[in-house]
């Protein structure tokens, strides 16, 4: 097992005089990608903001990150000013499919590209232990989601430094193949959920739909096979 890099204990988080979340206990290990999910309004953003108070250890990227970036700077400048190793940046630029836009101003990029650039830039600022992203997959199409998850994977595997990533998301299905630990946020703490792609896909689905699934086991299996076929179909281009 990798070494533990942080433990957070938060008794309660109070917002506007009301206790929103209590009993947070979170252990973070090196090279871990942690997904936090939970119903809308349970306080995911609040928790992530609270964690990001430890500014010396944590780099936090809020939702809609592209609003914070100077729109007139070129992508090249935005990425190389992070101080990360040139070869590493170049490799990740390819990984993020950004080669074609390096000389463009940030404002000239598409929504998906902007999102990837903001995330990549945060990851390249290589002086923190923990990187937190609030809903980094929201409103992205399937291909953009995969690119970002693969980027997280690559950065964790290839970085020589101690590092781990926490993301909040609604999109359990997409993260399952990539994530190391899934935690459900409830008003009374974080609950660890074991989720693996095939075995628990029905459970995941039922959690999202909030209804029992109305298909026989054979039919569910056929649909999971179909899901994987269609994903391959869309990425093979």
């Amino acid at each position, binding site marked *: 097992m990798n070494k533990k890099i942080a433990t957070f204990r938060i008794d309660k988080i109070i917002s506007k005089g009301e206790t929103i979340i209590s009993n947070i206990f979170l252990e973070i290990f090196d090279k871990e990608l942690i997904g936090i999910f939970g119903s*809308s309004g349970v306080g995911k953003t609040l928790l992530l903001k609270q964690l990001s108070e430890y500014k010396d250890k944590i780099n936090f990227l809020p939702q809609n990150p592209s609003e914070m970036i100077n729109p007139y700077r070129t992508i090249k400048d935005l990425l190389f000013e992070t101080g990360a190793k040139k070869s590493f940046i170049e490799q990740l630029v390819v990984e993020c499919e950004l080669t074609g836009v390096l000389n463009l101003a940030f404002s000239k990029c598409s929504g998906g590209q902007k999102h990837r650039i903001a995330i990549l830039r945060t990851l390249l600022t290589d002086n923190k232990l923990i990187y937190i992203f609030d809903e980094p997959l929201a409103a992205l*199409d*399937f291909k953009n989601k995969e690119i970002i998850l693969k980027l997280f994977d690559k950065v964790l595997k290839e970085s020589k430094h101690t590092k781990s990533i926490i993301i909040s998301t609604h999109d359990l299905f997409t993260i399952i193949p990539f994530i190391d630990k899934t935690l459900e946020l409830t008003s009374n703490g974080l609950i660890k959920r074991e989720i693996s792609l095939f075995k628990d896909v029905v459970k995941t689905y039922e959690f999202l739909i909030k209804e029992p699934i109305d298909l026989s086991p054979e039919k569910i299996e056929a649909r999971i096979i179909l899901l994987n076929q269609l*994903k391959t*179909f*869309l990425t093979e281009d």
Partner: protein
Amino acid sequence: MSTTLLEIKIPAIFSVVPEIKILLKNINLSIPKTGLHALIGSSGSGKSLFFSILTGTKFKSVLIDKKASITVNDDLVLSMDEYNSFIKRKKFFYLFIDQNYNQALDENLTVRENILLLNKQITIEEINSIFNEFNLTTKILYSKIKEISGGQLQRFVLITTLLLPKTPELIILDEVTSALDYENEVIIWKILTKISKKCSIIVTTHNLNLAVFFANSFFTIKNKEVNLVFREDDE
């Protein structure tokens, strides 16, 4: 009773300007009278061309093979020209809904007034019963379109299809869910499942994870071909 709404046979569709090029080929598909059917393909794969064929919209400088035919409701075989004029004469009733569809509503009028513009005959009991069926609060009936939330508007747009004097035979939905968060998207899929018991719905979507559990059949569009890759067995 027949279960097929459209039987589409098109050997090839060409563009003629600037050069003759095949756009889509070997189309041989059947669309059932009910159910939720997903069309999956990356952008630029020809989805809008395929929809323009189904909706009888003429593309400039596009040629369709003369042997093409569309069979409507099993017994009526039409050439493409006949099919287009058949649609013009409203013998086949379809709706095309994309992200701009709410512009068809008048945002300065209330929800109720907009419903009455679509269907003068509808009674308040009918409206209430449809709103209840789809868990949409009847409180919004007296709010202006521009005052209701994005999620409510999206749900309302979809159920307007059932508030018309006549239920459409086919509804085409182009990427209507792509700007939604997960929870609202689930609500939309549930609504579509219900509507699809009464008519046929074709959707395009990027969210395969939800689509695979809701749609009854899947078409893919790639390398200029449209293929059926999955259809639920009859139960």
